């Protein structure tokens, strides 16, 4: 498809035009964090660093009201009815300025919530009405490892529009018909030779990343080290068992359901859950199969690098964005743990 060039100063009018029809979620600074917020202009938008939060919240919000309920009148048999109202999301959205890893995260979500086997009505309603505009990475961070998990700094999979950065603007390419419609709203000029230059720059970025990690033995070795609790205790010792890695992760998709409100009225809420929390597997009996953080961190690694690939044609449930490394208060580095599994030998 045709490549066009959008000046940095024209991002603002472009977002304004898109925002007339859709909610545009773009990264903005709040404190020292960069978070996705609904924007009706491009003035505060931050497009040069990896956002602190991931774009998953736009299609899978931290809190989703599944239904609301009120207590009904009494029935003849003495029972009390409940009236429920479904609350399906509506409205169109744009994710503006994710990185290729964030777009990949959404593809990992699709395998779970919206595919031939399963259609989660709430997820699908958002996902099918959301277009993704991705910025290629010219300079991957030292904590980035997308090249180890099947991605790349210029990977266009899962994106409707790719933006390839240059100093004064972006070469833009629409990859879907939805992307073309959005791109038509941007003040632009033909990209000409800039297209080749910008794409080459993004294409070369992978060379700055070092060689991909060898994950060839991880699934086999994981089975071997699964019951070696000392191994997992060693690697989880400094972990605080908080939820930062999970909540900032573009691919962690687990949720919890609680009824919030009173006996008279309230809502059924779906909220993000995280497998690093004790409550995640606490059973009503009082038993907890993952009572120690070592077991919980083992699960986090296992889910991403073993269980998910077994279910989904060998694809990993990690997009290599490195958020779990940079945001961890203890600087736990998932790459080191996966490497230790790969190199595991039982004595």
């Amino acid at each position, binding site marked *: 498809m045709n490549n066009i060039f959008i000046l940095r100063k024209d991002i603002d009018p472009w977002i304004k035009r898109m925002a007339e029809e859709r909610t545009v979620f773009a990264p903005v600074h*709040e*404190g*020292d*964090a960069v*978070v996705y917020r609904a924007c009706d202009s491009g003035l505060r938008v931050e497009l*040069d*660093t*990896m956002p*602190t*939060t991931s774009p998953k919240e736009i299609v899978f919000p*931290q*809190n989703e009201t599944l239904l609301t309920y009120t207590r009904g009148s009494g029935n003849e048999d003495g029972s009390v009815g409940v009236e429920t109202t479904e609350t399906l999301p509506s409205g169109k959205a744009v994710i503006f300025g994710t990185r290729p890893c964030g777009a990949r995260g959404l593809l990992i979500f699709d395998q779970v919530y919206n595919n031939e086997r399963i259609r989660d009505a709430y997820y699908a309603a958002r996902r099918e009405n959301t277009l993704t505009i991705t910025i290629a990475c010219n*300079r991957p*961070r*030292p*904590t980035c490892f997308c090249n180890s998990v099947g991605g790349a700094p210029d990977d266009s999979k899962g994106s409707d529009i790719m933006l390839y950065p240059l100093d004064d603007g972006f070469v833009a390419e629409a990859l879907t018909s939805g992307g073309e419609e959005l791109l038509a709203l941007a003040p632009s000029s033909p990209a000409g030779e800039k297209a080749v230059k910008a794409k080459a720059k993004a294409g070369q970025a992978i060379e700055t990343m070092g060689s991909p990690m060898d994950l060839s033995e991880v699934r086999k070795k994981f089975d071997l080290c699964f019951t070696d609790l000392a191994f997992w205790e*060693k690697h989880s*010792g*400094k972990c*605080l*068992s*908080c*939820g*930062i890695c*999970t*909540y*900032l992760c573009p691919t962690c998709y687990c949720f*919890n359901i*609680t009824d*919030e409100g009173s006996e008279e009225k309230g809502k059924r*809420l779906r*909220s*993000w859950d*995280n497998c690093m*929390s*004790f*409550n995640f597997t606490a059973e009503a009996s009082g038993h907890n199969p993952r009572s120690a953080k070592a077991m919980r961190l083992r699960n986090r690694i296992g889910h991403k690098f073993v269980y998910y690939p077994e279910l989904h044609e060998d694809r990993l449930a990690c997009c290599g964005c490195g958020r779990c*490394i*940079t*945001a961890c*208060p*203890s*600087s*736990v*580095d998932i790459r080191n743990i996966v490497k230790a599994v790969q190199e595991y030998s039982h004595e």
Partner: protein
Amino acid sequence: MNVLETMKKCIREALPDLDMVMGWEQGFDTLHATPLFMETAEDVDRLILGPTCVQSLAVHLPSLKGKKIGVVVKGCDSRAVVQLLSENLLNRENLVIFGFGCDGVVSLSRLKKKLGALDFIESAEKKDDRLCIEINGEQQDLPFDDICAPKCLTCSRPNAIISDHFAGPQRTPRIPAKGKTALEKFEEKSLPERFDFWKAQMQRCVRCYACRDSCPMCVCRDHCVAVSRNPHFVSQEATASENFMFQLIHVMHLAGRCVSCGECERACPMDIPLGLLRAKSTEVTSALFNQEAGLDQEAVLPLLSFNIEEETIEEHD
């Protein structure tokens, strides 16, 4: 022998009688230290001491009860150890404390606000009262006071206040700069302004509970009121008001116990200024009970004791 080598020597000598010693090693770049759990003499080689050693390792101690543990502490970390001891949450005889005099630690949040993203850091070194760092190919030379953790600006106890081994010289406590504290400045705002401020901050909270889990005094761990289902005290909805509710429960539970280590604020991935809430609770408890947490191992918590007449509380008729 410099401080680090002295410390390594102390640890190597003590290690045979211990299950492990907790310290720090370099993390994924020169601005990030990561906790190091030393079990062998070779592990000790990786130890670092310096302005990136931000984590309070005291947070791990209650969960290691029953083992013989060594822990390296800065002044502020040592107050957490004292407080845990005073609450009978640790056995002193199973604990070996390696103290040193701390020169202050870096706040990545303040550094980010000065320099922008910190992704491409080449080197970072503290030279006297400056931090010299090479970032994005450029040399930056910053006054340490501009980028240190806020707690270090007013640190009155840079030296471990409890220790079995102390490496290197004692550091001189800071004389707090004249002028208003962050809390005093904040409290000059009107009530609606303060409430609007917190609403905006709390909107960002993702309820990851890193503030709780990095807190050495948050010892409920797996049984926190915030995630209790039965009774269902706190809504799981991560809205500004519910998040604020959780944060206020957290701060109330720490009243008279908070040792002002600042770990909650440092751990927060969303840069929410939780230290302000802690500072307020400390101000109130110290005014009411003339007490400061984490200084006296024999002290009884003000909220765990009862006096017919409190010295500092004027009784109603």
